[in-house]
């Protein structure tokens, strides 16, 4: 018996729902709930993580991210301006830098500055400095490309108008072009901060003291000390979401605002 298109669609929907129910049921039956609640969802044992997760883990994650972002933003702005420069040498340096740091894993950069610098120069940087430099230098490469796109999105007439009023090139850049470019790149820049928040965890490759633990390291430490299996890592993950989801919402808000008006 032939079915109409609408009937076929309804049957297909029933079949999909059926497969889903069967899959979930199979998963529930196959799961060893006792092991799972002991090793993964053992929230009864995570009490000792508080309140230190705020004052060590979360605090350090935020500090490391902030430091990396400051270096990344200033370096990124410099690189973006170099990339748009009329002087070829600046463009080559900026292009080389950006391609290099976007092309290698951030983890390698952390290792280079964490272990390489002491080997090469005999000085041991403070952990915060290692994060600031490593995260910042990688971030600068990505932020540079974002800012370059933003600077180029500001119409040429803006520079012409500013120059016609007697502003020197740098003044037109600082007063007229850069403020508009920042408004344009606010959403992608916020996403950049989200990436940095997560990448700040890479500092785990260095030996840290408890006071230097950021969220991921704090969670890993909980795995070995609390006897609750992976549970502390889930808690750390939840704390990342507490930071990243509001940032993501913020980015969306910036996006809809800039879609409404150019201001």
């Amino acid at each position: 018996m032939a079915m109409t298109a609408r009937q076929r669609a309804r049957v297909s929907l029933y079949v999909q729902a059926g497969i889903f129910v069967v899959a979930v049921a199979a998963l529930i039956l196959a799961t060893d709930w006792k092991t799972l609640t002991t090793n993964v969802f053992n929230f009864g044992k995570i009490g000792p993580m508080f309140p230190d997760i705020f004052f060590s883990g979360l605090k350090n994650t935020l500090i490391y991210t902030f430091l990396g972002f400051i270096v990344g933003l200033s370096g990124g702005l410099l690189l973006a301006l170099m990339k748009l420069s009329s002087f070829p040498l600046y463009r080559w340096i900026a292009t080389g830098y950006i391609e290099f740091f976007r092309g290698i894993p951030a983890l390698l950069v952390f290792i280079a500055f964490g272990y390489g610098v002491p080997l090469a120069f005999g000085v041991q940087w403070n952990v915060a400095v290692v994060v600031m430099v490593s995260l910042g230098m990688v971030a600068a490469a990505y932020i540079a490309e974002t800012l370059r796109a933003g600077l180029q999105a500001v119409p040429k007439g803006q520079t012409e108008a500013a120059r016609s009023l007697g502003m020197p090139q740098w003044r037109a850049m600082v007063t007229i072009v850069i403020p508009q470019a920042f408004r344009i790149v606010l959403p992608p820049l916020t996403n950049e901060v989200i990436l940095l928040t997560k990448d700040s965890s890479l500092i785990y490759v260095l030996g840290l003291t408890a006071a230097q633990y950021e969220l991921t390291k704090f969670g890993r430490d909980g795995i070995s000390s609390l006897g609750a299996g992976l549970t502390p890592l889930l808690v750390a993950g939840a704390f990342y979401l507490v930071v990243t989801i509001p940032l993501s919402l913020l980015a969306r808000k910036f996006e809809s605002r800039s879609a409404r008006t150019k201001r």
Partner: protein
Amino acid sequence: MNDVEIHSRTQSGRVHAAGVAIKDLRKSYGSNEVLKGISLDVAPGEVVCLIGPSGSGKSTLLRCVNLLEQPNEGSIHVGGFDATDADVDIDKMRRKVGMVFQQFNLFPHLNALRNCTIAQTKVLKRPQAEADKIARANLERVGLGHLADRFPDQLSGGQQQRVAIARALSMDPELMLFDEPTSALDPETVGDVLSVMRNLAKEGMTMLVVTHEMGFAREVADRVVFMDGGVVVEEGVAEQVIGSPTQGRTKEFLRRVLDPTHIEIAE
């Protein structure tokens, strides 16, 4: 059109006007020569309209005067400045030369008042209070004193263009360049902008205007210059060039522009 009644100049009385002297100006983009040896003098206080078909080089010529385009050959003198001298202080020269663009180019992140003060404070180093006072006087002058707090995206095209004129005037220019100032406007706002320009001309400002508004050129311009193919084809008093042109190309152009189905006379 009470809105655009121009109030008498509040700061310095009469305009201090500069002249322009352009000699054998040439400009090429690659192998495409856009200006093929242009000579043109504008006396202080004179209003000259540049007309001609698109691609005739009139906008390029205008943009060369404040060095938004770099000429290849020839000389331009503006006020006391030799614009084509490699050592000229471009920024200092541009302070004397106001520029009004077809697309307004207001700064969208600043309100009307700040658009008119930003260069005063950053370039002329005027104190904010003085800059505000001058900006408000000039916004008043273009009939927009009541919209000083509005941002560009809250203004109509004609209002934006008048803010752009006020912005240029706030620098106390001695010469004003207009690059097709009404071409991007809705027809009903063209008249407001033209009447601001007419009043500026009456105050004695030197004006070099690229325009397709033949009515305006005829009424306001002391002289009209017709350009085609990168050369000046014909120039003279407005009535003569527009009213009874002698050159074939001028006649042909005016016939097309003044075709009754396209005619737009503000008055």
